[in-house]
């Protein structure tokens, strides 16, 4: 049994297959692990992928790019309007739906997406050597129901059996298996996705293996293409400097430069310098230029700043500091840029930066893992995609003292834990005491605890005195769905046990 995860981005699509407990990206027939999401229409065939992208210079009006941006949108949508204004293909409205007009024929965005999905399916099938239908598809967090439906329909039309649509940031988390091994504990993860055309940053709280999105922000004005454009502008000025021709007005020459700049940008992520060479760029003149990584970083410094500002802004918005983030996941092809990784690392000095999986493959791998989880399960499709789950509202803490004897509070049941839940802790007390008092407090996060936050205490009396030793107190906290709490404490040595049940004030 195998299943695949497909990520359809604005600029690229990527598929990963789950087989025998492993998820891995499958390479397409050209050997590339990522397929450009470009579809070219000619008289008798549709070309998907790199070939279409490279031929775009010659076949501008019949090549569809960034189909994801218009999928499931209607004409009134500002995003769609923006897209139509930029698109080189003519987009017309018919029966309230937007369609591409290619060679006099109408092609809907769903059809284009369908072609891309078919290509991805084909890729996965040839890599696995078997028929694959079960698929998990990723969608951006800001996709509405209509867009989700359109994407789902496109995938279904391509012959895929969509098990579930999941959000891109959660897929990224899943790819790294965050929270999947030990379901207790709570952490905040920041997902930094810098794709081809957009930057989206999401803060996810992982609690008991469940992901909860705290806040998310998408910026459509910055993406990998901006870096390419900046580099292309630089190349154009270089060309002007050496040949006194300004090619900026010539769209075809600029497109050639963009292609060259993109290749250079990619190689600069691994190499110190890259060579740009364009045959007959303008007026029969060849263009040859060397760009060093330092030069590239200088050109794009403003863009880097913008990328980082977005993180700071989002953190400020949710009231978190860099220290509250436990992990940072990088995804999207443009987060390969070494300078960007370095800058993010500087922003979160004490945080683990997860980039062991190539950033542009993280999301499909996560999707494939989810597909593996869902594989063979009955009724995988949830009625309502996101179902509300009861969570505890406040932290439950226990007062303890540290080495110096000062009061200190230990969180034993964090807020936001999906209910019902049980948490088990082994607390310790000095062996010289014959009694132990467990004082329970409730509090919102980050608010200093006051004495009137205390709601119960558990006292264990007549314990065996162990000079120099420690009492191990096994504390089990169980909270039901309505929020009522049951706490039991057992002394491991004597087996003495005390339990209380705290109801919620009505």
């Amino acid at each position: 049994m195998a299943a695949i995860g497909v990520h359809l981005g604005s600029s690229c699509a990527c598929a990963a297959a789950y087989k025998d407990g492993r998820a891995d990206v499958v390479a397409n027939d050209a050997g590339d692990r990522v397929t450009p999401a470009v579809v070219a229409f000619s008289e008798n065939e549709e070309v998907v992928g790199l070939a279409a992208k490279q031929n775009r210079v010659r076949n501008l009006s019949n090549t569809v790019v960034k189909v994801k941006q218009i999928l499931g949108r209607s004409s009134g949508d500002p995003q769609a309007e923006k897209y139509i204004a930029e698109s080189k293909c003519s987009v017309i409205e018919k029966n309230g739906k937007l369609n591409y007009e290619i060679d006099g024929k109408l092609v809907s965005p769903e059809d284009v997406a369908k072609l891309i999905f078919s290509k991805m399916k084909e890729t996965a099938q040839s890599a696995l050597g078997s028929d694959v239908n079960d698929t998990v598809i990723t969608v951006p967090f800001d996709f509405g129901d209509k867009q989700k439906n359109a994407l789902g329909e496109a995938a279904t039309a391509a012959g895929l059996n969509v098990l579930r649509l999941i959000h891109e940031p959660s897929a990224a988390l899943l790819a790294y298996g965050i929270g999947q091994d030990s379901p207790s504990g709570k952490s905040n993860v920041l997902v930094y996705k810098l794709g081809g055309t957009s930057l989206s940053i999401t803060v996810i709280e992982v609690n008991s293996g469940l992901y909860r999105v705290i806040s998310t922000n998408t910026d459509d004005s910055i993406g990998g293409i901006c870096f390419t454009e900046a580099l292309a502008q630089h190349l154009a000025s270089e060309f002007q400097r050496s040949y006194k021709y300004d090619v900026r007005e010539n769209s075809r020459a600029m497109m050639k430069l963009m292609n060259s700049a993109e290749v250079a940008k990619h190689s600069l992520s691994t190499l110190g310098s890259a060579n740009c060479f364009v045959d007959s760029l303008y007026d029969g003149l060849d263009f040859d230029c060397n760009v060093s990584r330092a030069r590239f970083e200088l050109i794009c410094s403003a863009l880097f700043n913008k990328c980082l500002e977005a993180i700071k802004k989002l953190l400020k918005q949710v009231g978190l500091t860099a220290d509250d983030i436990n992990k940072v996941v990088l995804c999207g092809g443009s987060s390969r840029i070494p300078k960007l990784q370095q800058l993010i690392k500087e922003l979160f000095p004490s945080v683990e930066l997860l980039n062991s999986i190539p950033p542009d493959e993280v999301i499909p791998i996560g999707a494939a893992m989810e597909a593996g989880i869902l594989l063979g399960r009955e009724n995988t499709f949830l009625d309502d995609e996101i179902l509300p789950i009861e969570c505890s509202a406040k932290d439950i803490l226990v007062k303890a003292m540290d080495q110096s004897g000062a009061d200190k509070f230990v969180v034993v049941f964090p807020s936001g834990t999906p209910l019902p839940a049980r948490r088990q802790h082994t607390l310790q007390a000095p062996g010289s005491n014959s009694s132990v008092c467990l004082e329970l407090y409730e509090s919102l996060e980050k608010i200093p605890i006051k004495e009137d936050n205390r709601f119960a205490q558990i006292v264990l009396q007549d314990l065996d005195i162990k000079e120099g030793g420690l009492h191990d107190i096994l504390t089990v906290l169980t909270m039901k769905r309505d929020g009522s709490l049951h706490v039991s404490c057992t002394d491991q040595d004597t087996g003495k046990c005390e339990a209380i049940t705290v109801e919620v004030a009505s």
Partner: protein
Amino acid sequence: MLLRGAPEGQVTGVSRALSSASVLCQVEPVGRWFEAFVKRRNIHVSASFQELEDEKELSEESGDEELQLEEFPMLKTLDPKDWKNQDHYSVLGLGHIRYKASQKQIKAAHKAMVLKHHPDKRKAAGEQIGEGDNDYFTCITKAYEILSDPLKRRAFNSIDPTFDNTVPSKSEAKENFFEVFSPVFERNARWSNKKNVPKLGDTNSSFEEVDAFYSFWYNFDSWREFSYLDEEEKEKAECRDERRWIEKQNRAARALRKKEEMNRIRTLVDTAYSCDPRIKKFKEEEKAKKEAEKKAKAEAKRKEQEERDRQRQAELEAARLAKEKEEEEIRQQALLVKKEKDIQKKAIKKERQKLRTTCKNWNYFSDSEAECVKMMEEVEKLCDRLELASLQCLNEALTSTTREEGKAAVEKQIDEVNEQIRREREEAEARMRQATKSSEKPTSGGVGGSKNWSEDDLQLLIKAVNLFPAGTNSRWEVIANYMNLHSTTGIKRTAKDVINKAKSLQKLDPHQKDDINKKAFDKFKKEHGVVPQADSATPSERFEATFTDLSPWTTEEQKLLEQALKTYPVNTPERWEKIAASVPGRSKKDCMKRYKELVEMVKAKKAAQEQVVNAAKTKK
């Protein structure tokens, strides 16, 4: 981190309740923990939680332990043979909790029973023991057997003898609906496959709640089954066929019972529904609402209608007013104009009078009677023709000057007027001439310079045109040729000339055509010197009349005629009568005439064509 010791006097306890209940959050539907979570939720309890609940129940149970272990005299009365009809719960001492008993409780109860009632134990105590299966201990074993197997237990639960199957009657429910039905529904809710059976609620329940309640109960999905009541046991069958037969019997019996059960539930819900005061209330409310809506709609419609009427009225009023105003204005204007005219008339009259008097005073500038009379005439003419302004001018001139000068002025004025009259007359004449000329123009204008068309030629042309109808090969050349051949004037005419002339002739009104014809006739008369006699004039006139009448042979008639000519060959008796009969609207004479014409036309055409061909040949 170390916990502190307890201060003196501190005891375990809850000082206050938790301040906040759980909050609803949305989580991402990914990961295996999510799947596990959903699965747990779908079966409603988690494994670990079950334990907790069980613990609680056990602790509750422990209180009853003593009671349970008491002597059950009823046990002794049990007939081991009739185990099927025993109440397994009370046999195990669980009569007080029955179907709510957990597996653990059943197990514990059985254990306790075994400890107490095992035959070995009782034998040791010196009790009389029944042989083999005849001891009542068998009943305990059977009871446990039934209750420990979930399927069998369910079957037994389904026919629980203590369950009250009754459905309250309508009359009972009339008074205190909720008191009667609430326990009934709660009782029956245990059969539901679905959890969270909606409660009956009370008088204040919302419409949605009541609706949900009834839709739940109308679609009640019961797990109650009646396999326990099977008459025959499948296991007893000796062969496969028998087993099948038994199964069939059982199935039929079960289905019947199940149907009865469903009917029971249905009756219950129906009764409840019909008695429910809330339903009545909702219906009334609905009705009232509908009525109100209807009323509101009617009101709105009426208002709209009124509004429209008023608007139309206002429009009509406005239109009427505007019209009146306009008329008034027109009237005013007319009045004004009339007034002005009157004033002018008066003024002009005055002026005329003045002129006349001045002229009279001066004795019409002459002394002789005749001149006087002539002058008088002239002055009258002046008075008639002159405008007010010029009259005034003249009068002024007359009053301010001497007689001589006045005479000069008047004469000058008279001259001018005369001149004007003359000019007008001339103009009128010119216009008249123009009119006659323009009417004649086509006749003479089309001739074109040197080539004059005499009457003969015109006649010839008309004849030629008629002879060679449209469609003839190189028609105009043929016509021109024909003209040249037959013309007496000897003017060579080309096809072009002929076309022009023919066209201009076509333009002519029939009146002029008649003119030409008449002229031709006159000429004919003159030439032959014969004045047609009165009696011969009549037929000729009639002939003329018929000719003009039949001159337009329509294509249809033409076709009919040709067809008739073909169908009735020459030797047919009374040929022409028949032909005439087949051409409606034409007499025998007409047909004959037309035939002759056609024959002539064809002949002429042939001749002319021959000539053209010959001419072409000679040219070559």
